[in-house]
Structure formats: structure tokens, C-alpha cells
């Protein structure tokens, strides 16, 4: 892990600008947030294929569906709360059910949105999107993975939701990394406990593993960057090794990564599980780092959860 901090959305913008040059099927829609979501990079590179819809997310999804039904690969972006919530039913009928080639890419997800407060902190978006049939759900762990995932989405046929944060946070993947949809990455091998994380919490998980190793606890860290379809082989493989699991996400423990892993484990290979995430609560205003501390999403919270999971082993 380096100390380099980068914003995922900047690399989403870079990827779109690169796609503007290489893939003329790609069109990009935004709802008056192009400066924040960084779709503005695409607008500069291919203005004729950038569609400003104004503050009208429901219409954005319908227009994207129409473009996709006409052979385009439509990326539609806004903040996570709006992208997943305001137009959920539009996504359901116009995009997910007909399996249209619309990629909903949300920025400013999670608590680390910071001072804007609870209204703007999407903590339910993975849950909302994961429950839709045909929907692929991706949560890249850093800026480099966000770039690679954007490129992978442009190649993929069908609907997808990608979730990114607002703030700059440490990169944990190598620049130029590949992204395979539906494939998890083992970031660190271990035998005592599996820490399965997504988004910026992968960084916290790696930090926690480092701290645990000083206590003689050998934690495996898995970057579950595709939440749906869940890489169940990766879950099985790591749990077979360790026998105890911690999930970590900057999202509610209801319906997100923790739920996805819990569902899989309880049906297929029951194992002690501790979920780290927000606990059925809204966020509030504050600086990103302060909020992560207050809501129990730091490396030390992850380490504590790992000790707890190990204790539950029989």
C-alpha cells in the first residue's frame, strides 16, 4: 500500500475521456453534476456525445434506456443517493428488466461525502441495486481500479451500477491493473480470518491486517469489487482456509456486501461472521475521517471485528 491518495471519480473521468477516443458507441449523461462526477472530462473530449439532462434523474434514466435501445452504450452519472434512489423504479423497468446497456455510475457514495450530511450520504445504494434482477453491482477499491472497472463496463453488455466515493483516499492497487467483472482479488494471504472488503474499506482492511499481524494474527484480505454477481468461489476458498469472516463496507450492513456474503455462507458453508458497516442509521455532517471514526469504519474497528470473529470459531 502506498501513501498516494487519489479520488476515484477523477479516474472515472479519465477513463471516459479515453473511451471518447476509442469507442464511438459510448454516450454519457449527467444531471447537472458533471464537474463533480467528472463526466465533464468526456464532455470536453466528445461534446456531441455528452448529454446534459438538467436536474432530472428520472428522465436521465429513460433517455439512457432509449439511447441503449438504439445501440449506444450509455453511462449515466450523478450522486449515489439520486442515482440509486430517486430513479430506482425507472432503473427497474426501463433498464434492468429489458437488460439494456446502461451503466449507472454513482459518485459521492458513503459517509465520506462528509459535510453535506445524511441527505447526500448514500448508505443503501448497494442494497437497492443488488436486489434488481439482471443488475451487475461494482464497487472499486481505489482510483486505479475505478479506471479499470470503467473500461470493463464499456466492454460488458447489459445493465450495471458502479459505486464510487467523493474523497481522495489511498490507492491499494497497482496503476494499470486489470478488472475482471465478478472476480475478487486476494490482496493479502492469511490463515486465521478472512476480511472481505469493498471500496475504500479495502485500504482499512489492509491496515487492520498489518496491525493484527503484530499480534500474531494472520488475516487474509479479499477485495470483493464486484458485489453482484458475488465471487462465491473466492468466498469459499478464503473461508475454507480461515474459518472466520469479517465483511467491511462503507454502507449499511443491511443489504450490501455483508448481506451478500452472509446469504452465501449461511446457505452453503456456515462460518462465524462479523459485519462492519453502518448499523441501520443515517449519517450526519462532519469531515470524512471524523465520520469514519464515529460510525466505526476505521482500521482499528476492522481489527476488533477480526478478533471477535476468531473468538467465535469453535
Amino acid at each position, binding site marked *: 500500500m502506498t501513501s498516494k491518495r487519489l479520488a476515484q471519480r477523477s479516474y472515472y473521468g479519465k477513463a471516459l475521456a479515453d473511451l471518447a477516443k476509442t469507442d464511438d458507441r459510448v454516450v454519457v449523461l449527467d444531471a447537472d453534476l458533471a464537474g463533480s462526477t467528472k463526466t465533464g472530462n468526456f464532455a470536453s473530449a466528445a461534446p456531441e456525445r455528452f448529454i446534459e439532462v438538467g436536474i432530472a434523474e428520472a428522465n436521465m434514466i*429513460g*433517455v439512457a434506456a*432509449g439511447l441503449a435501445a438504439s445501440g449506444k452504450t450509455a453511462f449515466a452519472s450523478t450522486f449515489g443517493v439520486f442515482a440509486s434512489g430517486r430513479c430506482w423504479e425507472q432503473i427497474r423497468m426501463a433498464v434492468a428488466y429489458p437488460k439494456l446497456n446502461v451503466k449507472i455510475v454513482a459518485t459521492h457514495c458513503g459517509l465520506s461525502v462528509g459535510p453535506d450530511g445524511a441527505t447526500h450520504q448514500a448508505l443503501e445504494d448497494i442494497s437497492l441495486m443488488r436486489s434488481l434482477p439482471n443488475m451487475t453491482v461494482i464497487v472499486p477499491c481505489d482510483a486505479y481500479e475505478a479506471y479499470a472497472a470503467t473500461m470493463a463496463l464499456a466492454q460488458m453488455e447489459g445493465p450495471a451500477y458502479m459505486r464510487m466515493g467523493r474523497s481522495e483516499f489511498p490507492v491499494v492497487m497497482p496503476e494499470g491493473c486489470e478488472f475482471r467483472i465478478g472476480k475478487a482479488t486476494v490482496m493479502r494471504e492469511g490463515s486465521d480470518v478472512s476480511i472481505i472488503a469493498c471500496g475504500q474499506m479495502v485500504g482499512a482492511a489492509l491496515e487492520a491486517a498489518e496491525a493484527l499481524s503484530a499480534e500474531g494474527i494472520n488475516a487474509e484480505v479479499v477485495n470483493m469489487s464486484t458485489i453482484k454477481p458475488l465471487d462465491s468461489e473466492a468466498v469459499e476458498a478464503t473461508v475454507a482456509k480461515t474459518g472466520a469472516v469479517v465483511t467491511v463496507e462503507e454502507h449499511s450492513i443491511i443489504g450490501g456486501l455483508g448481506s451478500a456474503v452472509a446469504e452465501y455462507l449461511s446457505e452453503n458453508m456456515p462460518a462465524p461472521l462479523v459485519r462492519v458497516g453502518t448499523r441501520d442509521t443515517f449519517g450526519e455532517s462532519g469531515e470524512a475521517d471524523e465520520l469514519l471514526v464515529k460510525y466505526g469504519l476505521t482500521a482499528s474497528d476492522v481489527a476488533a471485528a477480526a478478533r471477535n470473529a476468531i473468538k467465535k470459531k469453535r
Partner: protein
Amino acid sequence: MMNDLGIGEIQNIANKLRLDVIEMTTAAGSGHPGGSLSAADLLATLYFRIMNIDPQNPYMEDRDRFVLSKGHAAPILYAALAERGYFPLEEIKTLRKIGTRLQGHPAYREVPGVEVTTGSLGQGLSMACGIALAGKMDGKDYRTYCLMGDGELQEGQNWEAAMFAHKYGLSNLIGFVDRNRLQICGNTEDVMCLDPLPEKFRAFGWNVIVIDGHNIRQIIDACEKAVRSRKNPTVVIMNTVKGKGVSFMENNVEFHGKACNPEEYAKAVAELKAVIQ
């Protein structure tokens, strides 16, 4: 091409479509006959005279597109597609039954000729905007026709789409409003008033044409006028009668979402057969 069909022939086809609607909703035991019958003259005119389409090649690149925003009127769309040769007519009796392609509301490409998925109201115009915009981007000449119900204009998304169509100069987009003035809970003006509807669309930058939606000549003239627009989208507000063509269904909101019982079926069929040549 069937563009040379005369008005009498189209009128006759419209009545055949009406009979198909009664046959299929009765066979299904459910469905939405009222708002299907009010749109029969429009669909007959579009599918048998106006649109550039080829049932043998349903997704040819330059085809005109039709979006049924009021998706509950699926029976009239299925009737038009079947009578035009997109799929076998006998299949209409599978409407709403398990395993059918004829879903209760139209599903994208389940049946050839269904361009988008609709049923949840207020979304079709947005999709039609996307299709029309793609045509402009790609330099295509096709036109996109979108039929909305009047009640569904209470959904705010329509007005987001209306602003969008004007901003992007979607002159290749032609909307129709089936202004039958009835929705489930009664008269549209009592439930949530829509008038003055022409002024609303004009204020959003659209060309507006108001016609009698059961007059084939007026529908053809409106379409010909709309396609001459070089700048703005056009909406044709069609004054219609819900349940048109079956006496006891006309202006009767009870038949918004209810099929005929055996006696009603016999009466409806007799009435329609009497006017079909």
C-alpha cells in the same frame, strides 16, 4: 409498403384491431380494453399508413419507432403488430397467460416490434427522447412516435422529458396524447386537472396540434404536418372516447381495466362485426 391504403380501409382495420382487443382481453379474463379502444384509430393509421416499417425485418436500422408509453394499452399494440404481420394473429389469445410473449404490459423485444418496456406510467416519453436523440446523433431519418395517456401526464417525468425534447430540438419526435379524459378514479379534471393541455405543451416549446383522435383524415394530416417540423418536437392531442366502438364501454371508466363477461363479449363482438367489412 402499405402507404396507399385509403381512409375507409384504415378505418376498417381500426375496427378489426378493436375486435382483436375484445377477443384477447376476454380470453385473458383481464386487461385494459377502454384505453386500447380509444387508441385504435391512431395505431391503425401509424402501422398501416404512416410508419416506415417492415414486419419481416422488425429491427431494420432506419425503421420508424413506436413507443407505447401508456403500456397498459398493450392489447392495441399487440393487435396492430399481429395484424401487420409481426407475429401470428392466433397468438393474441395467449395474452397474459403463463409462458406467453404477450406480457400484460409490453416487454422490450419479447414480441418483434416492441421497442421498449413500458407499463409503469410516465416513462415512455423519456425513452422516446433517447431513441430520437440517437437518430439525430447518427444522422438517421427515422421518426419516433410516442403515445401517452392523458392521465399519465400527471407524472412529473413527462415534463422533464418535454423540456429535454425541446432543448435537444427533437423535431423527429412526435407525441400523441390519448385525451379520453378518464382515469381509474374518474375524470382527469377531477382527479388532477390537466387543462389547459395545449398551452402546457406550447409553454414547453412544442408544436401542438389538436384533433379528433377518431378521425383518420385528421390523424394523417397531423402526422404529415408534424414531420415537416425542422426544429421542435410536436405533440398531437387527440380528443378521444375511452372504449370507442363498443357502446357500453364508451366513456365508461369501469372498462379501464376489466374484461368482458360472456354476455358483454357477445354484444361487443356483434357491434364490431357489424361495422367491419
